[in-house]
Every structure is written in structure tokens, then in C-alpha cells.
């Protein structure tokens, strides 16, 4: 078996890389394929918390690279999805603990075991980023509709383009999108972002308070029905698998069934 290694990266911190990694991982695994999530943010380990797997971590990525354990021993199985595993980062080390060559070897090994290997990249463009993209075949660039995040995404895309021999495809996920702000001209629209970045759009994820709740609970939102952000991530997963799913219409407020019912009886109420 040879899976696809997809790095999830952004340049800027705080735009939702780790949240996206967890959610895309869960959404992909829910479609039935096997998925390995790799946390490359060595020293700032977060992905295990979002997945709610913190208490199950025994070995980590650095232990594997330094051959203190077997790869299989370090992989933590998800609580709900048996075909989803997490390779946690080391918390007590830093980015220099591994190099690009070791990452390539690791990704190749994971590729032979899983359909999808999602690598959660750290922020920045230094060694951590270089390691994260080292073994990747594809990339997902996460940005928010903010000037600074778009600027950094542009920089990252430039760096990915320079590796086009290895990274065959890179697509954009626009995160934390707020249609009402866009309507008031207070936020860049999808078109504005794409005009600058000129990349393929993989998905748009609306800003959603439930994301924060799910992050704190350690249950990625894409496993939950009836939440728009969760649906957005499930759509992204289907697009990764090659399905042609139209981008969700975020401009209308009434797309969830509960809103539809509420607005049916009282069109002025917006939930």
C-alpha cells in the first residue's frame, strides 16, 4: 500500500493548522480510509490534546526517530475510530531533534501502513517547517481572511512551489470565515483571498464557537453532525478523496436543518 502524505501548513501561527489537522483526520477516517496524524510541532505538542488522546501518549516521534521504540508502539489509536492513529510530537525536545532525511524515512514507512498520512506542521518557515514538508506529496495551506495570514500563506506557497518536484499539489483551506463581516466589507472575501494567492481552493470553514468547545473537549467537530464547521471539514475530506463537492454556500444563514425550521416559522429569527 502506498498512501498519500499531506502536510498541513500555514506559515502564520494561530490560524487553525492543528484544529484542521485533527478535523480533516477524523473526517477522512470516517469515510473508511486509514489515517495517520503526525504532529510535527516538536516542543509545542497540541494535536494529542485536540484529539483527546493526551493521556494515552507513551512514546513520541522523536523516540521513533532515535530508535528508542518501534513506530507501531508510538502510534496512538483514536478512541472512536480504529482506523485513525496519532503519532505525537515530543514535548521535551525542540525542532532540531529531527532532520529532513529522518522525516522522509518516517513518512515513507507510514505511507506503507496508511492510506493517508497528515502531517501537522509548526508555524514558521524554519527547520520545523522544512522537516514537516520533507516527506510530503501534497500540501494543504491554511489561512484566515486576514492580511497577515494571507501574506504568510503566500510566502508558504512560494516555498512549496520551489519544491514542486516533491509536492505535486497544494490547496487552500480558508478558515474562520465570517460571511456577515464579508458582507459588510470588513473582511476579505473568498474571491479576494484567491485573487492574491491564486491557488486551488479545497474548502472554506466558517468561524464557529463550537470549534473552541470541541477543542477543549478533545472531540474534533467533524465527528459531530449539524455543525457547519464540521460539515465544512467533512466536505474537505471528501474533496481530498477526489469527490466533486461544491463549496458550501456560507452567505445564507439558513443551511442547517434547525435554522431552516426556525426561519420557516419566523423568518426574522437568525440562529
Amino acid at each position, binding site marked *: 500500500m502506498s498512501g498519500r502524505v499531506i502536510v498541513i501548513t500555514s506559515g502564520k501561527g494561530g490560524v487553525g493548522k492543528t484544529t484542521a489537522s485533527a478535523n480533516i483526520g477524523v473526517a477522512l477516517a470516517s469515510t473508511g480510509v486509514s489515517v495517520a496524524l503526525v504532529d510535527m510541532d516538536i516542543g509545542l505538542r497540541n494535536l494529542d490534546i485536540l484529539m483527546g488522546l493526551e493521556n494515552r501518549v507513551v512514546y513520541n516521534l522523536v523516540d521513533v526517530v532515535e530508535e528508542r521504540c518501534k513506530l507501531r508502539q508510538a502510534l496512538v489509536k483514536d478512541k472512536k475510530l480504529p482506523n485513525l492513529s496519532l503519532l505525537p510530537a515530543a514535548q521535551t525536545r525542540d525542532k532540531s531533534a529531527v532532520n529532513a532525511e529522518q522525516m522522509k524515512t518516517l513518512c515513507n514507512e507510514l505511507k506503507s501502513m496508511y492510506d493517508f498520512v497528515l502531517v501537522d506542521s509548526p508555524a514558521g518557515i524554519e527547520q520545523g517547517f522544512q522537516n514537516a514538508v520533507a516527506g510530503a506529496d501534497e500540501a494543504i495551506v491554511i489561512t484566515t481572511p486576514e*492580511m497577515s495570514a494571507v*501574506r*504568510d500563506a*503566500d*510566502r508558504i*506557497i*512560494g516555498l512549496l*512551489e520551489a519544491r514542486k518536484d516533491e509536492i505535486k499539489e497544494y490547496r487552500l483551506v480558508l478558515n474562520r470565515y465570517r460571511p456577515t463581516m464579508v458582507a459588510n*466589507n*470588513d*473582511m*476579505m*472575501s473568498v*474571491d*479576494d*483571498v484567491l*485573487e*492574491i*494567492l*491564486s491557488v486551488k481552493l479545497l474548502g472554506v470553514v466558517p468561524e464557529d464557537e463550537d470549534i473552541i468547545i470541541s477543542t477543549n473537549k478533545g472531540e474534533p467537530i467533524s465527528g459531530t453532525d449539524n455543525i457547519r464547521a464540521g460539515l465544512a471539514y467533512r466536505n474537505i475530506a471528501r474533496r481530498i478523496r477526489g469527490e466533486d463537492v461544491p463549496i458550501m454556500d456560507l452567505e445564507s444563514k439558513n443551511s442547517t436543518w434547525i435554522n431552516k425550521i426556525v426561519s420557516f416559522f419566523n423568518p426574522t429569527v437568525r440562529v
Partner: protein
Amino acid sequence: MSKIAIISQPEQGVLIDVGGCSTLKEALEHLSSTLQSSNQFWKGNKVILGIGSIEITVAQAAQVLALAKGVGVFPEEVYSKNEKTRAAFLENSVKVTSTLPMSLPKVKVDIPATGIPFAEADAEGQKVAVQLDVTMIEMEHDTVEDTPLPVVAAEVNKDGSTVVLPQVLYVKQTLRSGQVVSHKGDLVIVGDVNPGAEIMAEGDITVWGSLRGIAHAGIGGNTEAEIRALNLQPIQIRIAHAIARAPDRPRITYANGTGPEIARIVEGKIRIQKNKID
């Protein structure tokens, strides 16, 4: 009369002719100063060195070749009217010829009002011009009618010597944040220049796409330089020593373009005008 002429013709190669110089010392000086400042435009072409009628010994020929080698010129052939000079180069195992290897074009120079710097050289009684902008100068070709001749840009120094300017640099890609392109001549970007990217040129800058980053034309003080783009939304533009910046109002929308515009210096300040076809 100019001391050095450079003529480039497709398939025939590039002729670097110092036949206008009367002494070897002069020829060497012009050769080194011209070639060093010229961005190696001859790369990938066959280079022919023209010596004219200067008499050169075997040792001096080696000196000429060493100098040429030092700036990256490896002449395949040497053209000279002097028999001893030809023998000297032959001794240095370089092919020689007594006839001009490429037919020098007869060029009628029609300099537009803007005054494009150009150079003239006298080779075998023919007037040869090496000019800056092929499209702006009418030419009559000796051998082939109506074939435009790619001519390497050059300008005349105050002392009469010519300096070859590098050709236009084409960059066919979108420049993203953090990417920088600088060039000694004119710069053409086919693609966008995104915020965070920088482009610099001693001459003009043309962006066939959206210019949203920083552009600096006329580096070194050329106030005639222009910046033009299909969609001019830069963070900052600089021409020679003038700087203009974008308005302070935050920009959120990028999807609507401005239409083609040109930035140039008018009365010491950068002005932006809609592009009009005259």
C-alpha cells in the same frame, strides 16, 4: 566614433568588435570595462572577437584571451585584418578569419524625441549602431529585408566609450511574498507581484498582471524610468529616488482591478496615470 561595437545575430552568434580602438591598451580597457558591466548577454552564443587592424604579438594575444576569459567570454573565432595578429591568435589555438564573419547590418538610426542613448562604430566604412530599443528604431538590413535585428543595448559614456546594457529580463511567474527579483536593465514580470514581494530594476518595470508588492524602477537615479502594470495596487513604488506609498486606508478587497496604469516621475514626484493609447 565609438571604440567598441557589439552585434548579435541569431544563429551567427555575437560579435564583440574592438576594431575601433587604435592601440591594444585601449582595446583591452574597453573590452574589460564593457564586458564586466554587461551581465553576460552572450552566454550560450558563439562569440566572435573582432580586433580590427591592431597588430598583436603572440604574448599579447594570450593576454587578450585571458582578459576575455576573466569576464566569461570564450571567443570561438577572432576576426582581424592584420596578418600578424591572426597568426598570433592562431598560435594561441584560436580560429582566425580575415573576413568579417557576420555581415554587419547597415542601420539607419532614427532616434525618437526621448533620446535613446546609442553607440556607433565604424567597421569597414559602414555605420553600425548599437541601440537600446529595437522597436523604436528603424533599420535597413543589408542582406535580409525586413528582418529585425536583435541588438544588444548599449549606451555611450561621456568619454565616448560604450557600455553594454543588459537586455530585458523576463520573469514568467507570479512572485509571492518574500521573493525578490532585481535586474540591471528593464524588468518584465509576466504574472502577479504579490504583497511582500519586491522587484527592482535600473530601467523600467512592467508587470503583466497585478502589482501589489513593492516595485523600484530606475535604481541608480534614472528618473525617466516607469512602472506599469495591468493592475497597479502596490504597497509602495519607488522611481529613482522618489517614493510613493499606497493610501493609508486599509485594503480589504483585492478582487477588483484598477485597469492598466503607469507610474512615472512628473515634476519630481511620482504620478500615476491611466494607460492611454496615443
